[in-house]
């Protein structure tokens, strides 16, 4: 039980990861799929950041007075990953706008049906 409780951040990570993937697979709405993608990526931010924090740790200052410090590197990495995530989401939404202009719908089944109707349904 203690092992379970002390690793609670991992359980949250796994939960978010599974939820995000499930939304991407189960939802037919293209915007909802992107929401799932965002949740999925967020789980990874947590995976990196949570172990970087030490309770009672300070910022990494080179001094005799501070012995226990939190590792700043994961936070920097995840700042980068967040930027990447935002770029992906922005591009994804832009493509959805173009899809809506071209097909008049953002529901996957309606788009597939439109393509099949347009002729060579491959």
């Amino acid at each position, binding site marked *: 039980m203690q092992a379970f409780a002390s690793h609670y951040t991992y359980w949250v990570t796994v939960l978010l990861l599974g939820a995000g993937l499930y939304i991407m697979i189960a939802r037919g709405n293209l915007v909802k799929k992107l929401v799932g*993608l965002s949740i*999925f990526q967020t789980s*990874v931010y947590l995976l990196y950041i949570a172990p970087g924090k030490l309770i009672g740790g300070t910022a990494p200052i080179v001094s005799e007075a501070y012995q226990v410090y939190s590792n700043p590197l994961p936070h920097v990495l995840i700042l980068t990953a967040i930027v990447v995530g935002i*770029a992906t989401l922005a*591009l994804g939404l832009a493509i959805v706008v173009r899809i809506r202009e071209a097909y008049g719908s953002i529901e996957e089944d309606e*788009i597939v049906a439109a393509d099949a109707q347009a002729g060579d349904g491959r």
Partner: protein
Amino acid sequence: MIAAHLPALAVVVPLAAAPLIVLVRHAGAAWALAVAAAWFSFGASLALAAQVADAGVVSYAMGNWPPPWGIEYRVDALSAFVVVLVSAIGAAVAPYALKSVAAEVPGELRYLYYAMHCLCLAGLLGMAMTGDAFNLFVFMEVASLAMYVLIALGRDRRALLASYQYLLLGTIGATFYVIGVGVLYLQTGTLNIADMAARLPAVAGGRPAPAALAFITAGMSLKLALFPLHLWLPNAYAYAPSAATAFLAATATKVSVYVLLRFHFSVFGESAVTALLPMPEILIALSIAAIVTASLVAVWQADFKRLLAYSSVAQIGYITLGIGLATRDGLTAAVVHLFNHGITKGALFLLAGGIVLRAGGARFENLRGLGRSMPLTALGITLAGLSLIGVPGTAGFISKWYLVLGAIEAGMWWLAALVVLTSLIAVVYVWRFVEAAYLSEPGEAAPRPGEAPMPMLVVSWLMVAACLWFGFDTSFTVGGASRAAQLLLGGAP
């Protein structure tokens, strides 16, 4: 002075060219900038490959921060080989793109095509050269985001959906990779790939290391379109602008294969983590499934670009088959096929782009009578098709030869027979082209007589010539690949 900074310059020049192109906006000037940047990268890569051949490993401390703290660019025999392939294709496709993009992309968007070409090139080169696992992820996303845009620029509306699907699956793949790297970072406390390989044996006992291997393998398999994770590939290749298809088909999946090789052998090689999971068996089983299924699906395609896309999935199967064998000859085959398939498929998609330009599409009814209306294009496709099959005298034969040797070396005779047998399926789909081009009367949809514009034809034929050249002179391809294979099997350099 400049020679010491080649690893950085090869990536930075195309990376800086991209925003410049967006500022310039004029399509012609954008094209000139893209060509200049791509050729500079190609020159720098060749010089870098010469340095690597002399010195063994070229290490470059980005911003003068010494590794393993700073980000290191580390170019060894394997990365130099991949870098030369990627920059060569980039340099070849850039001049080709002028006419092809002018025909397929609306005028006000053309400069964006060239900006994305440069970004994609920079990202792929960065992936191949960086010695930092997280930096690799960032470059992977730079390249991937540029690819999604390139695909979405296709004129068919299905290109948008193909791009969207690739965006979802590609991001899942990249995120799986980051999860794997994160777990490795928590275990070893380092992100430098060489440093990670040195520290991993000490912590390889527990559950996290195999989990990291599994995540990275699954993520990269999505990126390199290993069966059954290839679903994004056929539509993306079929509906992207022709020049983009040629560039992506010849480089993107190949660089992902490089990352897989790097982690399977350089990082996990010495720590025996791979022995905890049945990795070779899984790779071999999936590769066989890819080769057989995708080749059969390719035979039934009505569109020539889609046929080539499915054939790509099958050919990637041959590459991963070599990785699964994990013997000296098997790995040589994988690395050589990475190069040979890159130039072969590049040549085929470039020539198909000429057909799209002249006939408005590359469906089989457009191909009827092509031997008379576009004789040079038809001959080029036939020759590159022979390389796809693996006929002696072409580049494709060399890779199949080493693959058969590798299978025999591993004691799997049935696998060697299977490689030869499945090549016969390739004969069927290449024959479908020959039949349409030479043995059919031109239909209504066939192009009027006349070749593709001269620059496109010259570039395409240079690639076809490369397919034949590397079928005879293998000192660069097999020499480079066997050095790379030795390096991979010897653990981290």
